[in-house]
């Protein structure tokens, strides 16, 4: 027997109050296995102890929501008897330690969250954030993460269709890897994790258990320090081939009426899946660990319970249906083992080598889990203007060239060409636009998907930043003509025990609540990743919003590519020229002070719905939301694909703030000559502000008579990644 010392308790991330509660509840000292179980279940990752208070305030319902937060993934009704199932999750710390495997297993985990609910995954997205490009680790992490994401998704045969890539010094020693998966299921064939049926079998399927990732869940919740790289042996290795088999086996079994409940073994492995499934059903669970298929010799109960080996699932089956399931899993050459049963005792009992290694009342683990309303202080930057626009007299074309070839605005093609974005042949809108569109297989309906966040806004004003992240996701779904339905969120923040960091969290949530409410855009699933700091320096607060919308009819949607010359160019929404916290100010002027643009949600709603109507009435087939980099960047992005440019004339006192300011609720659209009257009429009717600033033309971009050939721009736009990676560091 291992003696539980104060040091061991501390190593498990359990504080003295929490430990006292454990002693009181158990009325004895915990065994080491029990301590491990408490540590995993009460880690930030599993218990949401710092964030629960705030998360519970988010709106989670609208007329489309079938299942909100609390399950493996969120579920929405997309009509015709189908449901979309989706979630986003972080794998930040493992990816910093081993970028390829960390990113790969992040993708693997989110896929399981979706197919465990009975949905076939149809799209993956990834928001990835790295340190500044000059940081010594950035190249290695970037190439590792991108190939890890590709390596897993490509092998699974699920298209990776979108995402974001950002470079910022706040991520120098703490990169972010957030993976989102969207799946489609029959609406009446959703599988949940709530266990039921006393006496039913607890069944383990998938790959064998090794010593992978033990302490993974605990590690993900503990701040990094100088020695963290020595925690290396805990990183899990992904096996996408086994996951593909697991997916097909589960899909085959789910066609039959056999599964009572199912959950993947993700963070905290067998512990969290067993505890959560039994807990949700208000039952007890008894496991015999000698029956768990193990890859390594002499694994202890502690190790088996906390292993984070990948590609495993836990299912509840009625005993007389075991043989049906067994046959399917054996066909797919996966392990299948009955490892326990459900009881009516409300206890978790772990047997191993003829000893009881753990016996805990489930309510203590679940309902007894700590929840903190941590002290917080919401700080915002001072409201000040940019110091001096040193580029005020520069040719806008030369500024455009600088911006379009900068790490945060250049083409992401190098990234998404490494992802198979076309497999399943349902990708209607490819990566590189506002949203990707995936056809619902066998129908003429589509799903639009996007992921967005603007962390520099959140850092300067958490409340506005939270609003903006939700609004931008909504805007991206609107600008392809789809109806935005719901979101998943991945909340990446620093150490919540610091009141200013908790203030960032609280402020962002408050902003999100308001935006979700006004835009009828609720949160149906999500994940929180805290302690994203190194040596006490926090990352920019990064709430990544994954949005899903519906395209009713795939004959009617819009994309961002200019298609014809002589189209009218309209800017929908007001441009005041807000420069502070813009990419122009932050990166070209190196001026990081001041407040982000305000998001007027009523304006947002009005402009967005008007645009959607223009698209649905087929008045418009070309539209793009205006975000990072401002109006001129948006128009330039629209010219790249078909080499159709534009000629605009802008008479403003401050041209740069007009062209590069980042005011919200704006879209750039192109309108064919014979439809311009209809468009003007509709926008005026809806009282939507718009400006007509020029016309499209062939091959060139012309701003107030200053010209550049698009091919020249395209070269520097598309070559940044190759140039960066080919340079010796």
């Amino acid at each position, binding site marked *: 027997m291992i003696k539980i010392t104060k040091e061991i308790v501390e190593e498990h991330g359990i504080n003295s109050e929490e430990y006292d509660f454990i002693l009181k509840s158990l009325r004895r000292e915990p065994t080491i296995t029990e301590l491990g179980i408490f540590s995993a279940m009460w880690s930030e990752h599993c218990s949401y102890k710092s964030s629960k208070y705030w998360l519970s305030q988010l709106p989670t319902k609208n007329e489309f929501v079938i299942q909100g937060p609390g399950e493996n993934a969120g579920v929405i009704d997309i009509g015709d008897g189908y449901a979309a199932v989706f979630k986003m999750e972080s794998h930040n710390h493992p990816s910093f*330690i*081993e970028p390829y*495997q960390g990113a790969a297993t992040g993708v693997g985990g989110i896929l399981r969250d979706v197919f465990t609910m009975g949905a076939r995954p149809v799209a993956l997205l990834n928001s990835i954030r790295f340190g500044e490009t000059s940081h010594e680790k950035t190249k290695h992490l970037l190439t590792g993460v991108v190939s890890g994401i590709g390596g897993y998704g490509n092998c699974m045969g699920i298209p990776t269709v979108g995402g974001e890539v950002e470079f910022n010094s706040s991520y120098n020693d703490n990169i972010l890897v957030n993976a989102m998966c969207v799946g489609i299921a029959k609406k009446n064939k959703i599988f949940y994790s709530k266990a039921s049926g006393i006496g039913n079998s607890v069944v383990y399927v998938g*790959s064998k258990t*090794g*010593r*992978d990732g033990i302490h993974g869940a605990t590690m993900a919740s503990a701040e990094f320090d100088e020695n963290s790289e020595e925690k*290396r*042996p805990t*990183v*899990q*290795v992904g*096996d996408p*081939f*086994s996951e593909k088999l697991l997916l097909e086996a589960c899909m085959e079994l789910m066609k039959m009426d056999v599964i009572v409940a199912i959950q993947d073994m993700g963070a905290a492995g067998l512990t969290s899946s067993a505890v959560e499934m039994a807990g949700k059903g208000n039952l007890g669970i008894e496991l015999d660990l000698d029956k768990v298929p193990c*890859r*390594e010799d002499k694994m202890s109960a502690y190790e088996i319970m906390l292993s984070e*080996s*990948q590609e495993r699932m836990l299912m509840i089956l009625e005993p007389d249906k075991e043989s049906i399931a067994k046959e399917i899993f054996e066909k797919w*050459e996966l392990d299948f083992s009955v490892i326990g049963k459900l009881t009516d005792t409300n206890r978790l009992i772990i047997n191993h080598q003829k000893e009881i290694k753990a016996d805990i009342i489930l309510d203590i683990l679940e309902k007894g889990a700590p929840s903190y309303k941590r002290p917080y202080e919401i700080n915002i930057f001072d409201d000040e203007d940019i110091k001096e626009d040193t580029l005020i007299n520069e040719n806008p074309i030369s500024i455009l060239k600088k911006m379009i070839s900068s790490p945060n605005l250049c083409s992401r093609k190098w990234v998404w060409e490494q992802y198979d974005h076309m497999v399943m042949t349902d990708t209607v809108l490819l990566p590189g636009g506002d949203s990707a569109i995936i056809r619902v297989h066998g129908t003429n309906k589509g799903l639009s998907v996007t992921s967005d966040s603007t962390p520099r806004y959140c850092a300067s004003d958490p409340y506005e930043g939270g609003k903006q992240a939700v609004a931008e996701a909504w805007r991206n779904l609107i600008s392809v003509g789809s109806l935005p339905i719901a979101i998943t969120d991945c909340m990446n923040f620093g150490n919540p025990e610091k009141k200013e960091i908790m203030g960032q969290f609280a402020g962002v949530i408050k902003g999100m609540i308001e935006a979700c409410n006004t835009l009828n855009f609720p949160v149906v699933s999500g994940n929180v990743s805290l302690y994203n700091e190194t040596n006490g320096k926090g990352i920019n607060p990064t709430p990544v919003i994954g949005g899903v919308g519906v395209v009713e009819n795939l004959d009617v949607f819009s994309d961002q590519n200019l298609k014809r010359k002589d189209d009218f160019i309209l800017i929908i929404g007001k441009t005041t020229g807000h420069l502070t916290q813009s990419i122009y100010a932050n990166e070209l002027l190196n001026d990081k002070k001041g407040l982000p643009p305000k998001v007027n949600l009523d304006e947002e709603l009005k402009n967005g719905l008007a645009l959607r109507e223009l698209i649905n009435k087929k008045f418009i087939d070309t539209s793009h939301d205006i975000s990072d980099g401002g109006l001129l960047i948006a128009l330039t992005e629209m010219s790249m694909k078909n080499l159709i440019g534009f000629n605009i004339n802008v008479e403003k006192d401050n041209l740069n703030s007009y062209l590069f300011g980042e005011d919200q609720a704006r879209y750039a659209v192109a309108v064919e000559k014979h439809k311009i009257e209809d468009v003007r009429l509709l926008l005026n009717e809806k009282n939507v502000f718009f400006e007509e600033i020029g016309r499209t033309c062939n091959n060139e971009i012309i701003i107030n008579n200053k010209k550049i050939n698009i091919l020249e721009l395209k070269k520097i736009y598309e070559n940044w990644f190759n140039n960066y990676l080919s340079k010796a560091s």
Partner: protein
Amino acid sequence: MKLNVKIMPKNGVLDPQGKAIENSLSQLGFKNFSEIRQGKIIEIDIDADKDQAINIADEMCKKLLVNLIIEDYEIIFDREK
């Protein structure tokens, strides 16, 4: 000085490739074998004497050739060449 670096997945680390090869061999009818693991061998010719070359190779392994998180390595001095 010619050296070989033999790189293998660490004990206990999942080796999906080894596992897949093992299954395939047993399907082809091979019996009485177990524990297939797949690694790689890298040949390096280093212009230095033996001890120095081994030191340099060791540094190469740590800096680039080996992913120490999931792999072990062994430097094999190739006597015959």
